[in-house]
């Protein structure tokens, strides 16, 4: 604190010295001793300074003043004080550093009121978890707002709109972007600052067309460190190299030369391209004003300082060439002016804000660790008592007033929409990125990255589309317009567990070139990959109980059929020429009996088997069978003779297999072949089914809505509405229940304010009599109906007895049903009457009780 006072004091001293020298100003110019007149005058003067005549006065957007809270339209005394202080600071700076550019201190807000920039920052932590980390927050700000470039680009803006308004109108200049981002970052606990400074044209205009799209940047391949081969004690010596050393040397030399040549060429080419791609020279280079965000290390486990570019949401290192100079930095508590030389850009600048030799701070309540000032100066300070007192007073007044900005609010819906209207397009070097809000597009598209061959974005190379919430689980689609290849990626959860599907857009049908990759963990058959060409199919498996890991099928041409085309022939598979199955080693079997590979030469009626190699051997046993001539006849007895079998046994000592065993083996193989063939057919059908599904899904892509998404989930919404409606009805019913029995009778006597005893009695009598009457009426009514029904029934019976002879069967049936119904009705009426009789006295009693308790009558009973 000492040093700050000291420093402040120095400035003041120098200031006052200057003032004396200039003789224009009076002594009371100093900070807090101003008279009112001078104050006013100063304000006037300040305004004049702040608004230098500009030839390109852009029309400022007008805001409806009514919608802002009073803190926007007025200044608190404390704020005024801060403004004065800032103004004084500015003037001192101007005095001391005449050729310095003006500082960005007191711009007006949307209501035309001057506000100090530090108070415009409103630290806020919003409820979205994406905004808790700096990258998420920066990306959000970059996406959510539209850019308004500064006009003119080499002048500070006159107005700084509050972050809350910026959020509402979804656009802003670099200062508004940075202020908003800074509010969010400080709210999330980062040590973040707004920087006012200078940047390149590309940065100021957010022109990323020279940058490679971040999505295209190759991820740094995590190179698995090749496991160093342990030098063991008994490693065998490699065989002696018998080649000529000299020749080898010459060879190596030549190779090196070639490499060097190539390297050189590559470098030249690179340089040439770099030259071509250099931006055209900018006349305002170094003058373009820009604001961005600085995050200092220390808080939230940030390991080192970095910049965030608010327009793109990307981080930049401290020596970024995009930024050319820094004028000042501020956060919500203080304001620092850069005293370092920026002729080399921002490279090598110190961001030790506590170091007052490189950062001139504005408020003494600097929470940054300060450099210790030597005691000698302290003494000097002590001697100057007046100064000291003043300083104390200053300190008392000058802590930062709270932000005048309303709390930042962001609705869930707006947050999900991300970009203004849910769409945003960005142009990168040879690429275009379009972003869409979730659920905005019918097909679930959330972003599309188009990569072009040239800088002018005319020659489309490939398109990368990302999807979300699709019910068919499609997440990515990569279309290569050059080769016509399409690659689709899916999330787990599809039927048949498809993970990736590559095909040619020109030939999407079955039996064409394609690769399908599956989530093999979820599949019963453990299929990992299925590759197809027009005549071949290869399948890879993993983790199967039968150790199968590879299957290859070669198809022949479909036999052309003459005559009428059968509809089923299209579905019939192509003939199979050859099938290969490969198996992993099954350690439970001896290697000589463990099949490694079976080749079914279907076309040649041959089966070839290779076995696994034993651990101590290098050759593998093989076996070949010729299929019996009648093998495909059903029910035929298959014959066998020794000539149908050939074998090579690695170990000649092993006993030869018996004929029976061979015969049984052959039978097994025939079965296996049949099975394999069926599996191939199944695979083909599966491909067809998947393709059918895909076509259907593409035609009508549905989006899944999470059950937790109350806003979008129609069903849940309906349910909720239904519940609300029920509640309402319930309420209504309750109201109805509370019907006033006395109302009609009170109305009869003219709704008197107060009832006399007599009136009350008569009222009660009347009311009860009325109920009695109604109950009797009801009983009568039931009785009348009962009688009517009985009479009708009697009549019908009489009629039936008369006409019974001449009646048809149908009529008779009709009569019988009528009788049944009538008797049922009569019975019901009877029941009702009995119940009414039972209940009527109770009802009467109830009403009497109620009337007795009625507050209007209760006083009389």
């Amino acid at each position, binding site marked *: 604190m000492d040093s700050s006072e000291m420093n402040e004091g120095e400035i003041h001293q120098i200031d006052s010295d200057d003032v004396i020298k200039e003789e224009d100003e009076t002594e009371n110019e100093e900070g807090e001793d101003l008279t009112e007149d001078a104050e006013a005058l100063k304000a006037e003067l300040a305004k004049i300074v702040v608004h230098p005549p500009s030839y390109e006065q852009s029309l400022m957007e007008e805001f409806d003043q009514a919608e802002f809270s009073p803190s926007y339209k007025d200044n608190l005394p404390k704020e005024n004080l801060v403004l004065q202080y800032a103004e004084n600071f500015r003037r001192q700076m101007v005095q001391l550093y005449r050729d310095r550019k003006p500082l960005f201190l007191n711009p007006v807000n949307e209501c035309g009121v001057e506000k100090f920039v530090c108070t415009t920052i409103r630290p806020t932590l919003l409820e979205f978890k994406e905004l808790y980390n700096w990258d998420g927050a920066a990306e959000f700000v970059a996406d959510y707002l539209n850019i308004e470039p500064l006009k003119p680009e080499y002048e500070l803006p006159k107005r700084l709109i509050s972050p809350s308004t910026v959020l509402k109108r979804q656009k802003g200049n670099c200062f508004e972007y940075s202020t908003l981002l800074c509010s969010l970052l400080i709210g999330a606990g980062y040590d973040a600052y707004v920087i006012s400074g200078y940047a390149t044209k590309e940065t100021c205009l957010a022109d990323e067309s020279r940058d490679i799209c971040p999505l295209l940047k190759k991820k740094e391949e995590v190179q698995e460190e090749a496991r160093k081969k342990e030098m063991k004690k*008994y490693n*065998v010596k490699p065989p002696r190299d018998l080649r000529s050393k000299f020749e080898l040397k010459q060879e190596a030399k030549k190779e090196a030369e070639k490499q060097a040549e190539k390297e050189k060429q590559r470098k030249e080419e690179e340089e040439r391209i770099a030259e071509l791609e250099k931006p055209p020279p900018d006349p305002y280079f170094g003058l373009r004003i820009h604001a961005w965000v600085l995050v200092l290390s220390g808080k939230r486990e940030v390991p080192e300082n970095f910049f965030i570019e608010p327009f793109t949401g990307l981080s930049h290192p401290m020596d970024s060439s995009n930024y050319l100079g820094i004028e000042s930095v501020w956060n919500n508590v203080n304001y620092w002016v850069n005293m370092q030389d920026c002729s080399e850009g921002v490279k090598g600048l110190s961001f030790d804000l506590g170091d007052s030799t490189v950062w001139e701070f504005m408020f003494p309540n600097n929470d940054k660790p300060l450099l210790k000032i030597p005691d000698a100066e302290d003494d000097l300070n002590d001697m100057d008592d007046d100064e000291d007192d003043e300083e104390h007073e200053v300190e008392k007044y000058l802590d930062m007033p709270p932000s005048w900005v309303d709390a930042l609010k962001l609705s869930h819906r707006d947050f999900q929409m991300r970009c203004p209207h849910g769409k945003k397009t960005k142009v990168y070097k040879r690429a275009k990125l379009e972003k869409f809000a979730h659920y905005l597009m019918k097909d679930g598209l959330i972003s599309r990255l188009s990569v072009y061959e040239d800088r002018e974005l005319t020659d489309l190379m490939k398109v990368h589309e990302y999807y979300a919430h699709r019910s068919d689980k499609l997440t990515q689609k990569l279309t290569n317009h050059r080769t016509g290849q399409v690659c689709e990626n899916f999330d787990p959860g599809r039927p048949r567990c498809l993970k990736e599907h590559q095909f040619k857009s020109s030939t999407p049908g079955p039996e064409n070139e394609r690769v399908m990759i599956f989530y093999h963990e979820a599949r019963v058959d453990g299929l990992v990959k299925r590759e197809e060409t027009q005549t071949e199919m290869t399948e890879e498996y993993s983790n199967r109980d039968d150790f199968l890991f590879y299957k290859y099928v070669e198809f022949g041409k479909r036999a052309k059929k003459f005559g009428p085309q059968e509809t089923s022939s299209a579905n019939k598979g192509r003939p199979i020429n050859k099938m290969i199955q490969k198996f992993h080693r099954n350690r439970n079997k001896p290697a000589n009996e463990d099949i490694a590979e079976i080749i079914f030469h279907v076309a040649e009626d041959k089966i070839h088997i290779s076995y696994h190699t034993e651990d101590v*051997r*290098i*050759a593998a046993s093989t076996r070949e069978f010729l299929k019996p001539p009648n093998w495909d006849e059903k029910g035929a007895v298959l014959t*066998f003779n020794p000539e149908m079998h050939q074998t090579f046994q690695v170990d000649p000592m092993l006993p030869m297999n018996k004929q*029976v065993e061979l015969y049984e083996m052959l039978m097994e193989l025939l079965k296996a072949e049949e099975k394999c063939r069926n599996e191939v057919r199944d695979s083909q059908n599966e491909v067809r089914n998947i393709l059918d599904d895909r076509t259907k899904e593409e035609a009508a892509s549905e989006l899944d809505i999470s059950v937790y998404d109350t806003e979008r989930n129609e069903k849940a919404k309906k349910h909720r509405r239904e519940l609300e409606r029920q509640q309402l009805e319930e309420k209504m019913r309750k109201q109805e229940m509370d019907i006033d029995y006395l109302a009609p009778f009170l109305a009869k006597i003219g709704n008197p304010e107060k009832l006399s005893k007599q009136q009350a009695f008569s009222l009660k009598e009347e009311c009860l009599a009325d109920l009695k009457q109604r109950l009797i009426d009801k009983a009568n009514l039931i009785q009348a109906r009962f009688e009517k029904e009985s009479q009708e029934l009697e009549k019908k019976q009489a009629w039936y007895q008369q006409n019974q002879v001449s009646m048809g069967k149908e009529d008779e049936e009709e009569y019988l049903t009528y009788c049944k119904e009538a008797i049922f009705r009569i019975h019901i009426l009877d029941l009702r009457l009995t119940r009414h009789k039972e209940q009527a006295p109770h009802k009467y009693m109830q009403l009497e009780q109620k009337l007795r308790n009625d507050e209007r009558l209760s006083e009389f009973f």
Partner: protein
Amino acid sequence: MSRLYDTVEPAVIDEEMLKKAVEEQGPKEEAGKIAKQEGIDFGDVLSLRLDFLNILKIDNLWEFTKLTKLQLDNNIIEKIEGLESLVNLVWLDLSFNNIEVIDNLDSLTKLEDLTLYSNRISTIENMDSLLNLHVLSLGRNQLTDLENLRYLRRFKNLKTLNLSDNPFCKQDEYKQYVIAFLSNLEFLDYRLVDQQSRDAAIEKYQVSRDEMLHNEKQAEIKKEDETKRQQELEKHKNAYVELMNGPDLFEQMYAEDKEGQKLNEMPEKFMQICTQIFDFGIAEHEKREEEVKSFWECVEEAKQDNKRLGMVHIDEFTETKKRMLLEMSQMSDHKMVEQYARDYNDKIQVLWDKLMGLELQLVDQLEEVIKEFERNMQDMVGTFVENVQALLSQCRDLENNHHEKMMEIAIVTLEKVIKNELDDEISDDLKMLLVDKDTIINAVSSSHDVHLLKIDNKEDDIVTRINQSLKNLIEQIHQDEEITRNRMRVSEINNLIDHLREEMDNLEVMQN
């Protein structure tokens, strides 16, 4: 196979019967025809059914070594026998016979299903080795003693048990008793044992069951300890320093020295040295093990590398062969075919050269490595022996010191005795020794000699054993890794090459 007469004509298992059974139960149809032509080896038969044959005595089954399933039900067998060689048997059916004693099943360790239904068995016994038993049927026998069922507890896998129609089934508590003491059972007497009845039964026999469990557990722990101790000792033996971590050597020294025992007590120092030897021995042993392990690893690696190379060559060749054969089959020109055949033969020769070259290279490499290993091992053993010897000589020094002191004391005591100055009461044994100078000196020095002899013996023992085992190891390595392996590989290569050549010749013959 129906019985024609009620009269029981005893039969024996003979070749004819077996042949008939095997043929009847063997492969059917075409396969059967082929099998018949060829004849069936009894050794290959997996399952055999010999039921309703009035067999009195099991015999002549020793050839069926691969048999897994054997049915001998509905005969008149009286004794279980002749099954010793059927070690692969999983399923054995001896129901409806006249067996009285369970016996001779010890070699059938793989047995899972044993049926002895309807016999005359009165005790469950002699089945200790059938630890894999899953299903056991002992229904309709003469079992009377429920206690006897505890014998079945040793079969941890026993899930299904049939005991119906035995005398003890009439007892009320029979079922609960069985369930309580064989609580792993899932099926008893054709019925599923449900959890409820199991709980009830266990509750009923809680006390005696707990006691039994406790005893079993104790026995198990004891056994485990025993095996652990055995393993430990085995390990120490391998390190050639067994029993050196205790007073054993010292006790041995005095074991054959009755006089010395009377004169002595256990010195601390001696123990320390013994322990030192022990620790050193264990450490050295571990080092040697490590050495051997790394040696084998490297050898294995070298062999694998070599194998891989060889396989690559063979694969390459197979590819070329396929191509060439395809081309040849499409050729009509006789001369060209011959040319191809010659080419092919040349290629075979090249393959042979390559494979043999690889093998020679491997032989060279291994030879070198083995030599180095041998040298290192010898060095290690040398150091070990030296150190042990040094430590044992310390022991010897101690013994010498001890001997001198002993001598002094003996003489002094003798003098005292002679002068009758000895205050303390001494034992009669000692008195016997303390009669004159020669006796006592003889006694002391003979004791000393015995001690030294023991130490020397120990030393010799350690040194010879370690040298012997090293020699064995090295010899074995030479034999296995150099000679056997090499011969096998060479014969393999030659076999392969011969096969390839033959293939070619056949093809040519066919084409001609």
